[in-house]
């Protein structure tokens, strides 16, 4: 059943690929990259889920269990969640660099259209 989540992640990733390939607006292309990043987060968190699991937090365990039982019990994978957590923050920083570049390109070529940015083609 978690395959639905994996498929949704693949779908969002491909929407990002489609945006990057077809759009000519540079900001839109960066948005496509953001979508591809988001797909990565969804995939990681879906992979961390286990059937009927709780969050990997030992604070206030569900009634009837102790912290130790919970630590050995049915929880989501904290390592994958950690990877997604850092990826989210790094994603913002990388997006900022891309956008700063886009603004510079727009100022230089006076256009957001990627077709106008072809100095290297001669």
């Amino acid at each position, binding site marked *: *059943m978690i*395959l*639905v*989540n994996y498929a*949704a992640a*693949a779908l*969002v990733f*491909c*929407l990002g*690929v*489609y945006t990057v390939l*077809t*759009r000519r607006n540079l*900001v*839109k292309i960066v948005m496509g990259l*953001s*979508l591809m990043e*988001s797909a990565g*987060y*969804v*995939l990681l*968190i*879906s992979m*961390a*889920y*286990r059937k009927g*699991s*709780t969050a*990997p*937090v*030992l*604070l206030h365990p569900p009634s009837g269990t102790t*912290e130790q039982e919970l*630590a*050995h019990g049915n929880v*989501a*994978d*904290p*390592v994958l969640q950690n990877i*997604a*957590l*850092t990826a*989210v923050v*790094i994603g*913002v*920083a*990388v*997006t*900022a*660099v891309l*956008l*700063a570049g*886009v*603004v510079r390109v*727009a*100022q*230089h070529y*006076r*256009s*957001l259209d990627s077709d106008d940015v072809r100095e290297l083609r001669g």
Partner: protein
Amino acid sequence: MTWFWVLDVVCLLWVVAGAVLVVWLRNLSGAVMALSLTGMGMTMLFVVLGAPDVAHAEVVVGAIALPVLYLVAIGKCRTVVERDDESTGEDRELHGGEPVRRRWAAVLLSAGVFTGLVVAFTGLPDETEELPAVARRAMTGALPDFHTTEPVSAVVYGYRAMDTFGETFLLLAAVVGVMVLTRTREARQGFVGEERAADEEQEDVDHPPRGSSSDEARRAERVEEGRAPEAPETPDREGLGAPAPETAQAMSVVARTAVRVALPLLLVGGLYLVSQGYSPGGGFPAGAVLLGAVLLVHTAFGYDRVRAVVRPRVLEVVEMLGAAAIVGVLAAGLPLEGSFAANWIPLAPEQTLRSGGMLQAFSVSELVEVGAGLTIVVFSLLGMRHDWAEDDEDGEGDESGEGDA
């Protein structure tokens, strides 16, 4: 089909619908809002899937950091587009029907990637498999090793501290990258007086400085309309019922009051995330919350209110102090405990402010680093000058004049 899967599928549909809107909407600002919508959907999904830490980070990133960055960047580009409207009339291509290239090739390729990914994902572990050994190790080790009830923080700031260290400095590198990209051109100085040697000739070519003349024009316009030529000292001095637009560089009294109410709540929430290290949260999302607080004050009260803090001299020092603190906390483990990023702070009882030992110190340093870094990034973009290439003689945007940029 249990309620869990119903919630899961609803959140997935929300995320996918947001993503489709991002692709489909022509209006860039609308697409940014759709991206934010996707972020909210993902936040809900992460809560459903039992990942509160990631949900914290995603909600502040999806709701504050990303939309602000995109909107500021779009604002900066839109200025350029408007100039294009006047001079070359190429606006149709930028505002009208969004041009699409390689449609069928892209559909084929995306569909191919989708098929490949789905086939590959069927081989991934599904929800019925056992937890991997590292995950079990993190779950069972968090309490004895760090006296913390929050295994994800134990992984972020403890077991994988080295990786987090690297990622933090990647963030720092990105901040430096944005600062370099957004910096205005500097006059070259200090060699042999070359910056003055050609002043006379330069004046023939240069246009007068952009800022001063437009400021003067605006002031003259104000006087002509019979309004106060200068803004009041603080926005709150603006009389109620004064004719709009208010002269203060701030929003209306409604927005200012709303921010006065919301700001303390937001600050307490952000500090709670980092101080209660034994519950989900931590320095990453809290830093993004601080950015949100600064932006709220800036938007509602104008730049004057945040000028004391939001200056390169202050923020860059704070940023570097945060980085130095991270290096210090991690490197202190080397002489004291024998390895980099080892826990050298005595462990306090669990579920107290100091529980977690080194994790808390790392997390607080991370708050400083991320908060200052993201603020620098946003305000660098906001302060970007129009450093574009000059016009050709016929007024067309130049394709060949890249030499002067």
